[in-house]
């Protein structure tokens, strides 16, 4: 018998496939919190990128008295060097973001690589890499950052490296778990049974699948990196020649801004850090929520299903 087999018609209407960018975009579109985060973060990033053009004064120009109060020309007052606070915030955001992004890049590269290797190869590779990760997980990281920053000297580059080196563990774990599950997917097995090389499988099948999670993790890591930079700066281990937001806080703190009544030197930079971190967390959290199918249905909730008025259509006689 030779029936020609057709599966005509009735194919579900093609809908756009969520691409990697798509997931980010969709999440931002659908969740107001993520949208707020994205808008705020973009504003800060734009301001930071445009710092040289939009900063009202020079970063090193003493334009008034030490801790000059807010005025028309200096809406947020002056810092302990008589420098305009708005200028400092714009430039500070720039450095903080650079540190955040760069350190995250470092941690993504290390964490991503280790996570993929451990998850993909499993076995001994996995246990060795995970033991290393575990070790990094238990070292108290802020103290270690202090030590390393003290040893290497406080430069922006070192801070980026140190933060990056300490932050990769969570990335590695998240990625490893995801890779492990992707590795067991049938299409990966199939590719392997076809004789595909590891590189091909990793780059063509595993990484794209892990990418959305990596993005979510990246956004969250940026927040942590910025936080850590602020902490390091506060402890005097920041790069003194670069004005980051943490540095601005530290300068004000060291010069007793609070007791001299100069709240404007200390409140705005911290608030800006908080806003940036909050935005990252909102986006990252929403992405993680969106990517975690287990969060979608809660079988018990304060809200219950709704009742609609009766429609009445079919007859129910038997």
């Amino acid at each position, binding site marked *: 018998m030779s029936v020609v087999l057709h599966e005509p018609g009735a194919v579900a209407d093609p809908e756009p496939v969520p691409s990697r960018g798509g997931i980010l975009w969709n999440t931002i579109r659908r969740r107001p919190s993520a949208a707020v985060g994205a808008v705020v973060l973009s504003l800060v990033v734009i301001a930071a990128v445009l710092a040289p053009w939009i900063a009202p004064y020079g970063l*090193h120009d*003493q334009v008034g008295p*030490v*801790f000059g109060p807010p005025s028309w020309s200096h809406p947020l007052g002056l810092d*302990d*060097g*008589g420098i305009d606070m708005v200028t400092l915030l714009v430039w500070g955001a720039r450095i903080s973001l650079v540190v955040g992004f760069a350190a995250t890049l470092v941690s993504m590269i290390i964490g991503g690589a280790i996570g993929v290797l451990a998850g993909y190869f499993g076995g001994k590779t996995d246990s060795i890499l995970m033991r290393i990760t575990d070790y990094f997980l238990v070292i108290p990281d802020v103290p270690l950052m202090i030590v390393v920053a*003290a*040893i290497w*000297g*406080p430069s922006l580059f070192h801070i980026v490296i140190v933060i990056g080196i300490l932050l990769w563990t969570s990335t590695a774990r998240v990625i490893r778990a995801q890779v492990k599950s992707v590795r067991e997917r049938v299409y990966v097995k199939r590719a392997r049974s076809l004789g595909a090389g590891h590189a091909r499988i990793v780059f063509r099948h595993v990484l794209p699948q892990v990418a959305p999670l990596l993005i979510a993790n990246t956004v969250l890591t940026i927040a942590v990196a910025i936080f850590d930079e602020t902490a390091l700066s506060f402890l*005097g*281990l920041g*790069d*003194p*020649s670069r004005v980051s937001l943490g540095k601005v806080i530290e300068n004000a*703190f*060291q*010069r*007793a*801004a*609070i*007791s*001299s*009544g*100069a709240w404007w030197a200390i409140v705005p930079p911290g608030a800006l850090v908080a806003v940036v971190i909050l935005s990252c967390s909102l986006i990252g959290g929403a992405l993680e929520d969106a990517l975690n199918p287990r969060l979608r249905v809660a079988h018990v909730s304060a809200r219950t299903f709704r009742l609609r008025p009766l429609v009445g259509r079919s007859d129910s006689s038997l």
Partner: protein
Amino acid sequence: GGSHSKSGGTFRLATSSGIDSLNPYVAFNQDAYSMFEYIYPLLVQYDKDNKQFVPDFARSWTTSKDGKTWTFTTVAGAKWSDGKPLTAADAAWTINTDIKYKGGGAANAAGLIAHIRRAVAPNPTTLVVHYAAAPGNVLGQFQQFAILPKHVWSKHLGHKGADLKTFPNNAPVVGAGPFKLVEYKKNQIALFQRNDSFFGPKPQVDAFGLRIFSNDDAMVSALKAHEIDAIEAVPATAIKTLKSAGFTITQVPGVDQTDFIFNSNPKKKTHRELLNLKLKEAFAHAVDRDQIIRVVFLGTAKPADSIVPQATGWHNPQLKPESFDLGLANKMLDQLGYKRGSGGVRVANGHKMAYDVITPTSVQSTSRTFQIMQASFAKIGVQLRQKALDATTAFDEMSGPNGKYLNFDLALWDWVALIDPDFMLSVVTCAQYGGWSDSGYCDKKYDRMYSQQQLTPNQDKRRALVWKMQKYLYDRRPYVWLATQDSVDALSPKWTGLVPSPQGPFNSLSKVSLTSVHQK
């Protein structure tokens, strides 16, 4: 004592540094030495103005002709706080112990007993000290030398004197100063009680407490909240608000000077143009001391010009800070033939005049100072880059490799001078390579002058020599001195009588400050 004022009460003082150890063989912090001043007998102390030596445990002293033997008459009938007699024998024992263990447990005190052969106490009120050579600063040294109770410390000579360092000397400490240390919590508080058996003038307060803060804001708010009565180093930014809140602010010249350091090692490998005295002079004219004082110190500092601060009384009055004159500086550099290259940066010996300036992160003021200098140096075609390092690393970098001072170019740091100029003058001697030297300066002629002043017991002659040395250094500029910070203290309106000093009211110069402080 004995005034009409209210006596008694506890005087509470805040400090931001703190006492690191109660053991004189271990302690390094200034506050620890200030504490020893108040709990241990010393042979002499400075007077109220820190100019003259006045009696403390030693009532009087004489010098032999050759200057090699000093004889002190000490207080009779003095007692340690535990009731045991305090005699010249305790002093002799302390000196001899330090000599014996100067390479080990007592190394910390070795500098103070330099040149001493031995000390003897022929009777309870006489102390005779024999020197190998006649030194010029005997009283200056003894002013820092705490006499320890033999009956306590002689039990801690084990392990070839190493036990001297491991003895914690916990509170209550057996001492014989105007106060007894009764309680001590590291990084928190030290509590002193009046010692009624003290041989000298008794404090008017019942007790005195030192509270340690790790940040200035907390300290200032504690003062405002009347949790404490005084601050010994007021942050400049807080002066205005404290004044308006009714606190008494006292501001006197201090001994902490910021300096711009040139690596002056003649054997320096690179950037040798920085050894050129004309260039150093040009650089000195590019420093805007006024702006530094205005921005960094908010006016609580004076322009500096010499390695010896004015407040010590040994400053050479003929020296004046270089004028801030960018035109002059530019002209001088032009004359030296350093042409401006791309970006307006001058070129010397085929390379851009762009230099790293090492700044220690522990000295807060250096960053702002650097920024100001960087801006003005840019105008004379010299590019400065900040290289901030923590103090240990910074010093390593400067003295490296192996204490040879070959690599670094410039640095910003500060020096806290003692009253006697000997120490400050010593830091630029060749002998201090790898030790105190932070400029790599080494000059045989200067070293000769230095030894000479050390062995000049006549104080007038010594002063002339010290002035000459200051001028000599001023011309050769291992340092360009930027500013001398004032010592600023704040006192609650309820209190009065606190005596300021270049080291602050709680100092190791004399006991006068806390013995005379009292409630209004």
